[in-house]
């Protein structure tokens, strides 16, 4: 019986790789391939867009279930569904595709018990239901991208040299690959601007550690090790006396010659890069402050630190390397030390690792940046 159900689920999955792909989109984002909105009925409440409550939100990207706020969303991987199970106080038999459809659309488990009220009922078209069930038929059985028996592949972007550690993680060697290959488990970007990597991480669901982000916002899959642009500005502001005026530049420095010489000029790294130092009047000597993610010269150390942080998180996963578990591990880091930069803390709501920036003072005459005042933290509101 069990075997038959497993085979039935697997067969469904095998019907069409496209269906699995479309099903994954519904599972992860609550979006149908047709572009039509899928509605989710939360018990008692009005119907809402399924994109607000996609399966992966509660059951996890890997379908193994999560627990939050007293709601325990059960394991819905193919193997779990194909088996009888006890969920809380409910006992259920194995799911068939028809019973799965009933569970998702009407809210009854395989034995006809009502599901927890936290589980929305999804209004799926026949096609959407087929796609989603095809995906549930392979969920947890697909090999994780970039993970093989004896190696884990990590993508690297940026000109800084990083070297893979020689240690193996539960029997798997770390292999660094360059050139934007798609078959990687996770990635790091150690370039001066990781915007493209952030966009790719979110689009292709590759967990990615990014050293520097200019303006891009990391959401779910990208993790920036340094402060956001807004926090860099706030850190600059915190580095000068509150009573003095300050002019902020975030993109180039046009008009700097007209700035009040009694005040300060605050510049993000991005602005400083596009600023012609010859345009800065001598009257602003030591009144121009520039923020960077970390001290210049620490590029190599910071890149190695980023890789070490990722490898450490991988090691915590043990042999069971899934992207979902990696995301959870990264979001649980608190004040994790990273060579060359400030310690990082990420959480589900925040994928910028720090609110601190390295602030330097411009010696206009010598045309060089002085390493003072150094680390400065954005003041919390």
């Amino acid at each position, binding site marked *: 019986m069990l075997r038959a159900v497993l085979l039935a689920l697997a067969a469904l999955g095998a019907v069409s790789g496209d269906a699995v792909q479309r099903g994954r989109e519904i599972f992860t984002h609550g979006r149908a391939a047709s572009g039509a909105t899928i509605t989710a009925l*939360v*018990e*008692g*409440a*009005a119907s*809402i*867009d399924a994109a*607000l*409550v996609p399966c992966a*939100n*509660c059951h996890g990207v890997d379908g193994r279930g*999560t627990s*939050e*706020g*007293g*709601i*325990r*969303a059960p394991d819905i991987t193919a193997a779990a569904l194909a088996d009888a199970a006890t969920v*809380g*106080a409910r006992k259920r038999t194995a799911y068939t595709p028809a019973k799965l459809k009933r569970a998702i659309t009407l809210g009854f488990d395989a034995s006809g018990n009502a599901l*927890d*009220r*936290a589980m*929305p009922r999804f209004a799926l078209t026949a096609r959407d239901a087929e796609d989603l069930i095809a995906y549930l038929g392979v969920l947890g059985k697909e090999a994780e991208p970039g993970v093989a028996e004896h190696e884990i592949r990590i993508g690297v972007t940026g000109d800084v040299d990083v070297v893979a550690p020689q240690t193996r993680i539960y029997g798997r060697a770390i292999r660094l690959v360059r050139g934007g290959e798609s078959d990687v488990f996770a990635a790091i970007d150690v370039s001066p601007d990781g915007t493209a990597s952030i966009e790719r991480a979110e689009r292709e669901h590759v967990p990615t550690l990014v050293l520097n982000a200019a303006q891009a916002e990391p959401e779910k899959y990208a993790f920036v090790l340094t402060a956001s642009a807004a926090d860099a500005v706030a850190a600059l502001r915190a580095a000068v006396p509150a009573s003095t005026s300050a002019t902020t530049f975030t993109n180039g420095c046009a008009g700097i010659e007209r700035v009040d010489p009694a005040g300060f000029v605050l510049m993000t790294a991005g602005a400083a890069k596009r600023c012609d130092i010859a345009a800065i009047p001598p009257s602003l000597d030591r009144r121009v402050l520039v923020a960077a993610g970390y001290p210049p010269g620490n590029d190599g150390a910071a890149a190695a630190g980023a890789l070490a942080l990722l490898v450490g998180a991988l090691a915590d996963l043990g042999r069971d390397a899934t992207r979902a578990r990696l995301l959870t591990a990264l979001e649980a880091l608190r004040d994790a030390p990273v060579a060359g930069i400030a310690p990082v803390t990420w*959480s*589900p*709501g*925040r994928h910028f690792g720090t609110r601190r920036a390295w602030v330097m003072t411009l010696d206009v005459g010598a045309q060089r940046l002085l390493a003072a005042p150094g680390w400065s933290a954005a003041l*919390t*509101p």
Partner: protein
Amino acid sequence: MRRITGMYKYTFFSLALFCCAPLSAVAGDIPQVADVEVVAQTGKTLHFYRDLVKGRVVAINFVYTGCSSVCPLLGANFARAQTLVGDAPNVAFVSVSIDPANDTPQRLEAWAAKFGAKPGWTLVTGAKADIDALAKSLGTTTADPTSHTPLVVIVDDVHGGAWQRLNGLTDPAALAKVLRADAARLAAR
């Protein structure tokens, strides 16, 4: 108070048992809602008790925008309850961010918009210490947002009396009924 918190932990696997009725009313002395400074989704600075609670019947829940499983359900429930309550005067809805360091007013506004929040539903963030004090005064905590319990506190500042603490996933119709009953008493005065 401590007893009720204990009950919440106990309901971990049996939420459904408590879904449709108030969990319990707080007996004894009525605690004070902290009058700390908060920032609403509009960016306006308010005092929590003075500006949002005083003289009103208020349903308060606790959310954060980075929360993926429980909070969308809480948002949908508030939106529905707000519709069901309709234009009852002096009934208000307030969502308190328990991740104030990351929830900016803009993020709260965008979050509420997804659920179709109408005027009368205020979302607030603020300085961590103030939000901590506020949460504590309402009998909950911001210590670990990811394991927070879905909770709605109803404070009737018109008639006074014990606050009601409901499961945050309570049927919005039941929540609306409680609020309407208080509002009706208010209108009858």
